[in-house]
């Protein structure tokens, strides 16, 4: 950091104190922290619901849960994890890191940044209320639709569905406001001389993600608004009796739902693009091709949504188009993976926790991608559809592709955020327990699906017992392992070995020019970029 920057920063006031600091914060670091804390909290809610689901499936027959409650848990687990945990965590990393990486003093619209965050707790409360409401007198039936909210079932559910629709509207508003802020920040706030093709890949991934969000979230909002109208205002968008068609909702939902997968994955790929060069001690291989691959993924990902709906009876031409398009996506995704491996090739690699996660992600995400190609093939999908194979597939895509990437990012930047090194031994223990138990949980589900066990079913045939027992034991360990993550984070915040500004020997980028932790107001004088 230049002396001029330091001198300027000392002129500024420090952070406000008490509750006001958090309620009225317009500081990107504070808001980033709040996003991350919120995401971690929701991770435990979503994780608890997953552990209840797996506890019920430990043995055939009904043990703990009524069928409707089981379905409600399945619905809420997905929505909480996607909208409450993964997206806010990625937004937390974006808030913290994008201004630091591009040499901006803050986000472009700091007050809107505050609003984007504070909508989230309200939305999270509505989401949890949608789960709780049916337990009250006159609370209506439980939400048994799954996260896809397909009509006609979603039209018949009680008032908890209205809470859920309102929660989705709020979550959508929060995401769109945050996306607009991120795009404006990247376009207008870069340090003088930083061209688009010189931005860190993490910033690029968020630019693409933010554009995807503003393209698809309004369509979901339109879909659930139409659903709300069908429920309460006598319209028949999705009601066959009134001339509508429930399949229309599926198109609206998946036009959002499929790009949502890339929305969840891309920021984590950006983390990998930061972590791998650092611990391989080599520059990133193929910067331009990575940017191109991301743009290709976003573009093609927007036009292949109906591969989630092969079984609805589309024309041969339509399913052929969606099958070919889906398989084509594996090319840019494969290119990204190739670039990460090529970055490691002949590098001086060390395996600190972020790098362990990066290597694990490459292996497991590729595996999830391969089962995705299987599912993209129409005749095969007709067999796998709505089976546990699909559950195994998307958990192999989303856990390594999104969640483990966020873990890698947290461990990579935690010393920068807190000024303390985390406990490497504990973190590596967390990695191994987490990754092994993840595989114990989800790998057997491939076999369950191939053998014919349907998903979203509270009870199952005796023949599926063994693999379900293994999967549930894995899930118990997997869920509990996150308590270790919580402990490591709290321990790091409270103290530990002092981290220097360039925490990792191989780290490159503007964020490492600032002290650890960075001052409350950073880059108040734009950094001078080296040529």
């Amino acid at each position, binding site marked *: 950091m230049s002396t001029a920057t330091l001198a300027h920063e000392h002129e500024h006031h420090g952070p406000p104190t008490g509750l006001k600091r958090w309620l009225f914060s317009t500081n990107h670091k504070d808001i980033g922290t709040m996003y991350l804390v919120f995401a971690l909290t929701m991770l435990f809610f979503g994780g608890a619901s997953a552990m209840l689901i797996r506890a019920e499936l430990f043995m055939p027959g009904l043990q703990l849960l009524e069928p409707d409650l089981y379905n409600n848990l399945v619905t809420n687990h997905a929505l909480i994890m996607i909208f409450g945990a993964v997206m806010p965590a990625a937004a937390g990393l974006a808030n913290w890191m994008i201004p630091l990486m591009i040499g901006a003093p803050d986000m472009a*619209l700091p007050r809107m940044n505050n609003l984007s965050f504070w909508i989230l707790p309200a939305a999270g409360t509505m989401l949890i209320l949608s789960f709780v409401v049916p337990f009250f007198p006159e609370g209506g039936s439980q939400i048994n639709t799954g996260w896809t909210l397909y009509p006609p079932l979603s039209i018949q559910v009680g008032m908890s569905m209205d809470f859920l629709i309102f929660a989705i509207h709020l979550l959508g508003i929060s995401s*769109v406001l945050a996306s*607009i802020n991120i795009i*404006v920040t990247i376009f207008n706030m870069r340090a003088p001389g930083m061209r688009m093709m010189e931005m860190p890949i993490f910033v690029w991934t968020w630019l693409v993600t933010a554009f995807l969000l503003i393209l698809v979230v309004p369509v979901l*909002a*339109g879909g659930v608004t139409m659903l709300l109208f069908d429920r309460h205002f006598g319209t028949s968008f999705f009601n066959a009796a009134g001339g509508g*068609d429930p399949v229309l909702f599926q198109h*609206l939902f998946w036009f959002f739902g499929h790009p949502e997968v890339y929305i969840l994955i891309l920021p984590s790929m950006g983390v990998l693009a930061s972590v791998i060069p650092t611990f391989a001690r080599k520059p990133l291989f193929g910067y331009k091709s990575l940017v191109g691959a991301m743009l290709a993924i976003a573009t093609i990902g927007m036009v292949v949504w109906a591969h989630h709906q092969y079984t609805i009876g589309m024309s041969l031409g339509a399913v052929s188009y969606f099958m070919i398009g889906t398989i084509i996506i594996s090319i840019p995704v494969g290119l990204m993976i190739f670039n990460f491996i090529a970055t490691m090739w002949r590098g001086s690699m060390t395996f600190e926790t972020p790098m362990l996660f990066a290597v694990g992600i490459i292996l497991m995400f590729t595996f999830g991608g391969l089962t995705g190609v299987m599912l993209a093939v129409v005749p095969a999908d007709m067999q796998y559809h709505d089976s546990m194979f699909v559950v195994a597939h998307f958990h192999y895509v989303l856990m390594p592709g999104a969640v483990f990437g966020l873990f890698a990012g947290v461990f990579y930047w935690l010393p920068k955020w807190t000024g303390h090194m985390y406990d490497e031994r504990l973190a590596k223990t967390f990695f191994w327990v987490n990754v092994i138990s993840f595989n114990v949980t989800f790998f057997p589900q491939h076999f369950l699906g191939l053998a014919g066990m349907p998903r979203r079913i509270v009870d199952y045939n005796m023949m599926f017992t063994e693999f379900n027992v293994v999967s549930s034991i894995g899930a118990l360990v997997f869920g509990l392992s996150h308590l270790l993550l919580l402990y490591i984070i709290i321990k790091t915040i409270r103290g530990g070995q002092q981290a220097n500004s360039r925490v990792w020997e191989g780290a490159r980028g503007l964020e490492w020019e600032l002290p650890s932790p960075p001052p409350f107001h950073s880059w108040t004088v734009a950094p001078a970029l080296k040529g």
Partner: protein
Amino acid sequence: MSPVNDPELRRRNVRTAWLLAAFVLFMFLSSVPFWRGLFRFAVGGGG
């Protein structure tokens, strides 16, 4: 003047944000007729 307080930059930020917000509104409002039209086209066999 630091970039945080530069009025010209603030105006540019707000302008870009409004432009993006207008795009979001367009996506929201057009989603209903667009998807209904596309759906009719699809079930009508493209005719």
